[in-house]
């Protein structure tokens, strides 16, 4: 692994050597358009990276089959960042030296955050799958998100629970990992803006399995709503143990609670009625999504999911923008992306100056293990 890092660095350095030489591949008007897809293909986060890559590839293959960008094919090259920011920065230098006009990925906010300054200097537009609010805070004109940030997820949730359902007694349980603490902070902020103080705020560790103690404390407050800020499996375990303790509160949370992993871990009966905030509720949420899910299954033989859909949306936006610039990159491409108004799988894309394209999520309720839009129930 060290060797590859060294090799990548060397390649990047040697390629950087001749100063002032052709960095604007935008001038090229013939041959394939080079687009890089950087995602973890090895290591702990590789499942995310693999889904993202499949979504991107599906969009690019479709575009190429339909004649490409103004007759030119899109050449999609995959690079493995191993989920490591250091590897990510080396790859950012490499793709700028190798004449890539655009970058898709990564799935980890931390890696994208590390790469952003380099890509900004190299004027390579990047559509990332990261969801951290810190990405929007950068306000880089070359960084775009293909999904909402945690702030949007939790703001929509708070709006539904407090403004629409008039819930007052809300308890929080979240883990102190990267995802859980982000959810905790964002939801708490949204509650504060509505002058709601949570009746309980329990923090657990990401590896914890036994929540009896935390949940017993929450039960004493008898909350109407229990906000769960944790990944799929842990959210499921919390929901299961909460019901075993006789907690009657409605469960609410972000995208992990719309998954089958959450529902089966909790038990279908326990997960019933959980409130989910997500831009992509299920593979059946709309006719367009249904069509996409069927297409995806036909190609890869597995069910589509949020990570696949948002990568597909991001790649489609990139291709649309490339068509407008005629394959040219740089500032022109960034402006074109900002101008794309796409009715995507995740919703209506409309980019603002911070690079956020989706400004709302949908509220779903879990029914028999599947998230269905709240309005339809």
């Amino acid at each position: 692994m060290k060797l590859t890092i060294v090799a990548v660095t060397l390649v990047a350095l040697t390629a950087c050597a001749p100063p002032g030489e052709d960095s604007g591949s935008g001038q090229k008007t013939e041959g394939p358009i080079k687009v890089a897809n950087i995602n973890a293909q090895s290591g702990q986060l590789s499942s995310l990276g693999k889904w993202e890559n499949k979504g991107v590839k599906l969009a690019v293959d479709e575009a190429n089959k339909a004649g490409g960008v103004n007759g030119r094919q899109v050449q999609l090259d995959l690079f493995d960042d191993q989920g490591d920011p250091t590897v990510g920065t080396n790859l950012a230098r490499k793709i700028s030296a190798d004449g890539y006009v655009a970058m898709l990925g990564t799935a980890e906010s931390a890696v994208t955050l590390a790469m952003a300054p380099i890509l900004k200097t190299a004027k390579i537009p990047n559509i990332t799958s990261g969801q951290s609010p810190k990405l929007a805070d950068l306000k880089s004109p070359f960084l775009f998100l293909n999904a909402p940030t945690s702030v949007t997820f939790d703001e929509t949730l708070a709006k539904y629970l407090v403004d629409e359902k008039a819930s007052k007694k809300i308890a929080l349980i979240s883990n102190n990992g990267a995802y859980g603490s982000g959810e905790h902070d964002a939801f708490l902020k949204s509650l504060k803006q509505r002058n709601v103080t949570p009746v309980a705020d329990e923090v657990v560790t990401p590896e914890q399995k036994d929540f009896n103690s935390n949940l017993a404390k929450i039960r004493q407050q008898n909350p109407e709503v229990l906000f769960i800020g944790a990944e799929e499996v842990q959210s499921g375990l919390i929901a299961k143990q909460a019901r075993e303790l006789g907690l009657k509160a409605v469960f609410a949370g972000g995208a992990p609670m719309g998954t089958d992993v959450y529902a089966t871990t909790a038990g279908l009966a326990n997960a019933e009625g959980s409130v989910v905030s997500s831009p992509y509720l299920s593979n059946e949420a709309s006719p367009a999504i249904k069509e996409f899910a069927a297409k995806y299954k036909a190609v890869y033989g597995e069910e589509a999911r949020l990570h696949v859909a948002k990568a597909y949306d991001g790649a489609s936006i990139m291709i649309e923008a490339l068509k407008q610039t005629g394959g040219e990159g740089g500032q022109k491409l960034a402006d074109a992306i900002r101008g794309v108004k796409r009715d995507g799988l995740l919703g209506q894309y409309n980019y603002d100056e911070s690079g956020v394209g989706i400004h709302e999520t949908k509220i779903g309720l879990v029914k028999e293990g599947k998230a269905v839009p709240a309005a339809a129930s």
Partner: protein
Amino acid sequence: MQVFLQTLIGGITFGAVYALVAMGFSIVYRTMGLVNFAHGSVVMIGAYAASTFYMATRLPFAVAMVVAIVVTGLIGLVIERFLRPLENKDFTLMLIGTIGFGAVLEALAILIWGATGHAVPNPVATEPINLGGVRIPTYSLLVIGVAAVATTMLALFLRRTKLGAAMQAVAMDHEAATACGIHVGRSNALSFGIGAGLAAVAGSLIGPMLYVNPTMGGTLGIKGFAAAMLGGFGSMPGAIVGGMAFGLLDAFAAGNFQAYSELVTFVVFALAVMIRPTGIFGEATVNRA
């Protein structure tokens, strides 16, 4: 008070599972002086075997558990057979061998069942028992009951049967045992088999409480190993007390120290081991490398 009692219930349930895992570590250690680092992975295989038979073939949970015990027991025998040529020759290689087997088992699980894992439905789907506001899930009672039965059976086997006595003899002095006509290799194989069987009991019990996936053995293995150390490595009563202590420590730390619970649990553990390096039931442990 209610919070205290509820925490106790959770702690005891998980403690019973940790105790079973710790006993698996200890039985191998007391006979061979070897820490079986593949034990956590064997627990994972046990969980997969039991849940697969229970869910796919609709076997009753108890039958699925027995099938899982047989499957992992065989795996235990295979591991021992591979390590046997090294017995009393190269202890370090044997240790590394068990680590290697752990990795192999994890890779096998990914090949057979995939990397994502599955949830296991609760086999006793009844309402929790309500005792003055303290709710006791019926499944917790099952876990504690099965763990108690397994422990008793093991104790009877070690004390009352000839084979068990032979294993105890090998644990005390394997040369003298050989002189008495006891087959040390067979005795070692038996301890590995029993250890793996205990892992299957623990794994099949924890399945419906958690989410079964190829990496679940990691944390369980570490907690079980630490529990065995705390109780006194190689001691059976120690494994039980250590497992319970760890479950309770975990449970109360979670309620009182929130995000720092894991830190507190292991700091307390480290202090306990520093004060009493041989564990609570500090037997003079064997080391025959």
